[in-house]
Each structure stands twice: as structure tokens, then as C-alpha cells.
């Protein structure tokens, strides 16, 4: 085997990944372009808000609650090494608002929503429902993608805000029950140290993650292969793709927002 063979495989892999990234980017741009032009499907948008936003509240809330509680324990244990136990309220609040709220919320929504969107649209594709939409003079991007992308972009920041609050409450619960914090002092420290941009940056991240989740779900659903195996593969690709992109986007946004 010559040296060129593995290099050729590597090149093909990189080209394939770039091509896939390009296809997703074009799909996302197309969705945004359709978002700005009528017709608008209000009923589908409201349905998507319910499915993506409202019905994700329990999973996001529970994730945030346990994360905030564990975070308080970890920061207390770590802070105790240099007598800095008092930073627990502020670090829990900042950690939840800037990072853990949006990232874990985004990942939970990716698991729940990207999979559901990809499976639903993928099934519609293999059962010719998308072809039927076209023959009924309805653009699939406008009818299926735009409402979901808009709903996810608008509702995930709300989920993040709720998750932040519940996560901070989880830290507070552990703080006052297990770590001997005074309730009023814990709340005061949380409020005093938390700045507007700590929360605002998390909400912007939430919007970006919501957009990613819906675009990946719709893209993989629309490009689903045939049969149950094709829909299964589309669902898996949507969740994996959305999760990786969320983590990558989180780094980039953190770099933009907080680098010195």
C-alpha cells in the first residue's frame, strides 16, 4: 500500500465532511430566506412552539435542577481547599447562566426535539407525504422547516431562562439544606454577583442552539433514506450532528462573548 492511499482516504473524508457542511449551510440559508417571505403558517408555528418549547420544559427543568444541585456540591468541595466556600452562590449562578443552562438545555432539546423532527419528517418523506405537499402547491420548506426553526429559535432561550432559574434554585436548595448556607445570604450573593450579560449571553446561546437543533432535525428528515432503517439513520444523524454543533457553537460564542 503506498503512502498516497491513506492520504487519499483522508482527503475524501475531509471533502465529504465539507460537502455535508455546505449542504447543511445551504439548507439553513434557504430556511432563513423562506422565513422572510410569505406565506406564513401560523398554525404550524404554534404547534411547533407547543411541541418544542412547552413539552420540553420537564426534561430541561429536571436537568437544570440536578445540575445546579451537583454544581453547588462540587464548588463547595473545591472552594473548601482554599477557604472560598462562600463563592458557591455566585459561581452556581454564573455557571448555570453562562454555560450549563444553555449547553445542557440545548443538548436535552437536541435529544428530544431533533430526533422527533427528523423521525417525523423522515417518515413523511418515505411515505410520500412531502411529495403530496408539493402537489398540493405547498412548499415543504415553508410548511415543515420554517415553523420548526422559528419556534426552536424563539423557545429555546425561554427554556434556557427557565433552566437557569431552576438550576440556581437547585444550588440554593443544596446550599441551605446540605451546606449550611443562610437562605437570604445565598439569594443576596446570587443576585449581587449575577450581571445582565451573564444571563443575556446564555439566552443568545439558547437561540443559536435552538436554530441548530431544528435545522439539523429538518435537514436529516428531509434527506432521510428509504424505509425504517433510513429514518433511524436520519434520526441518529440529527441528534449527533446537533449535539456536536451545539458544543462547537458554544465554544465559538463563548470566545466571542468573553475572550479578553
Amino acid at each position, binding site marked *: 500500500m503506498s503512502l498516497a492511499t491513506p492520504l487519499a482516504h483522508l482527503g475524501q473524508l475531509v471533502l465529504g465532511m465539507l460537502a455535508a457542511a455546505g449542504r447543511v449551510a445551504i439548507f439553513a440559508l434557504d430556511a432563513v430566506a423562506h422565513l422572510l417571505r410569505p*406565506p406564513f*403558517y401560523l398554525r404550524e408555528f404554534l404547534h411547533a412552539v407547543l411541541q418544542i418549547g412547552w413539552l420540553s420544559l420537564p426534561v430541561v427543568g429536571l436537568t437544570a435542577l440536578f445540575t445546579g444541585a451537583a454544581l453547588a456540591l462540587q464548588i463547595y468541595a473545591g472552594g473548601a481547599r482554599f477557604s472560598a466556600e462562600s463563592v458557591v452562590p455566585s459561581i452556581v449562578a454564573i455557571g448555570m447562566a453562562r454555560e450549563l443552562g444553555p449547553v445542557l438545555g440545548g443538548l436535552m432539546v437536541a435529544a428530544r426535539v431533533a430526533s422527533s423532527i427528523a423521525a417525523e419528517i423522515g417518515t*413523511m418523506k418515505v*411515505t*410520500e*407525504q412531502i*411529495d*403530496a405537499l*408539493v*402537489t*398540493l*402547491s*405547498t412548499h415543504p420548506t415553508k410548511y415543515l422547516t420554517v415553523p420548526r426553526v422559528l419556534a426552536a429559535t424563539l423557545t429555546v432561550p425561554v427554556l434556557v431562562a427557565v433552566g437557569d432559574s431552576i438550576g440556581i434554585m437547585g444550588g440554593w436548595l443544596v446550599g441551605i439544606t446540605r451546606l449550611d448556607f443562610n437562605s437570604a445570604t445565598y439569594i443576596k450573593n446570587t443576585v449581587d454577583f449575577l450581571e445582565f450579560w451573564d444571563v443575556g449571553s446564555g439566552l443568545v446561546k439558547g437561540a443559536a442552539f435552538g436554530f441548530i437543533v431544528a435545522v439539523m432535525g429538518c435537514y436529516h428528515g428531509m434527506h432521510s433514506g428509504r424505509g425504517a432503517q433510513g429514518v433511524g439513520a436520519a434520526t441518529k444523524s440529527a441528534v449527533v450532528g446537533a449535539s456536536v454543533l451545539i458544543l462547537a457553537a458554544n465554544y465559538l460564542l463563548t470566545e466571542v462573548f468573553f475572550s479578553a
Partner: protein
Amino acid sequence: MIELAGVHKAFGANRVLRGVDLRVEQGSSMVVIGGSGTGKSVLLKCILGLVTPEAGSIRVAGEAANRASREAFLARFGMLFQGGALFDSLPVWQNVAFRLLRGAMKRPAAEARDIAVEKLRRVGLQPEVAELYPAELSGGMQKRVGLARAIAAAPQIIFFDEPTTGLDPIMAGVINELIREIVVEMGATAVTITHDMRSVRAIADHVAMLHDGVIRWTGTVTQMDATPDPYVHQFVNGLGHGPIAAVR
């Protein structure tokens, strides 16, 4: 009138259509027959623009399909899909009235519902079915709902993709009769693709046989039964031996 000239379509190395020429007169019912995987569905999808042909021209009422305004072009068509392709998330009446609830043909919901119920009645379904969801219907009922949806906006051209596949012989006969009645009643141009010879005899004014990516033969049902063409003879009579390979 629908005219196809030299239409080619390939999927990778698989050249499905290799120069299809076909002419369907206005108000007539053309049935395209051919074995499984010969590109019958692809042919319909090319006309509708769901699949883009690599070469050839498709004209509907004298207008090139790829130049027409997309919405106005599709407004002429109704289509019954092989599996029904009903929208799972919508009740039956909203499936039937889909086109009447949005876009250029939008009407008030109550009026659209009344039309849907009327179309359901036309295909032999009770008004109570209107509130059910597609998953609650049998295969035959789903076909009827699909048929009601195809005719709801009074299209000039109706496509039927394997309308009797998966149905028992009685229900298949009912669907065939309905298709024939509705096409005559509406004066619509119809193109049906099927390999059910009973459907062919019930529905067709003209028959075309698609084989090896080209239209191999066209004629009336009477001519089909009398033709010496070995391909048509083998297909019509369901013979295992002949020029068409039994194992493809």
C-alpha cells in the same frame, strides 16, 4: 394535453428513463403499464417537477413545465398516491381540504369543510369519517380519502399512482369504478400508472407500455388485447416466459 418528448432521467448509474415520448390528449384517460421498477412513478414525478429530468421536454397545455409559475402549474393537478400519503397529523377533512385551507385557493374553514364532506360523500364515505385521523382508517378508506383529496380543488389533470395496490379485489373494483366515474364527470385528463390489468380495462381510454426506459407501445384497450407485440402480450397475460425477464 400533456406532451413528453425525449425525457431522460437517471439515478446514478441507473438510467430509468431513456427518452420517453408520450402524448396524453385533453380529457382522455391514459394508463401507463410496465413492470415494477421500470420508472412509471418517476415519469409522473418528472411531469409534476418532483424529479428533474436531465434531458427532454415536458409541456402541459402547450406550456413548458419548467417555465410555468410553479403554484399555477401545480394548481392544475390532483394526485392519488400509492400509499395514500395522507398527513397523519391532520383529521380527514383537513387532508381533503388541504388546498382549500391555504394558499391561492384558500376559503373560509367552514366552506372548505363542507366541500371536503361533499367530496368524501362522492367517494362513498360518510360525513362522520371527516373527523377521524388517517391512522384510524382501513387501507381502502385511505385510498378513498386520497381520491377525495385529489379531486377536492377540481383539478384539470389527475394522476393515479397504483390506485389499487394493497386492496382486496372488491375494494379494487370499487376504486376503479370511482376513478372512471369521477374522471368522466369532471372531464379531467387522467394518467394512471399500474400493473393491475383489471384497472387498465376499467380506467383506460389509451394504454402505454413503459419498458427499458422508453414507451414501447401505445394504443387502446382493444388494440392492447390484439397486439402482436411480444412485450405487451407477455405483460398483459402475465406470462413467465417472453422477452421481459421474469427475474429483474
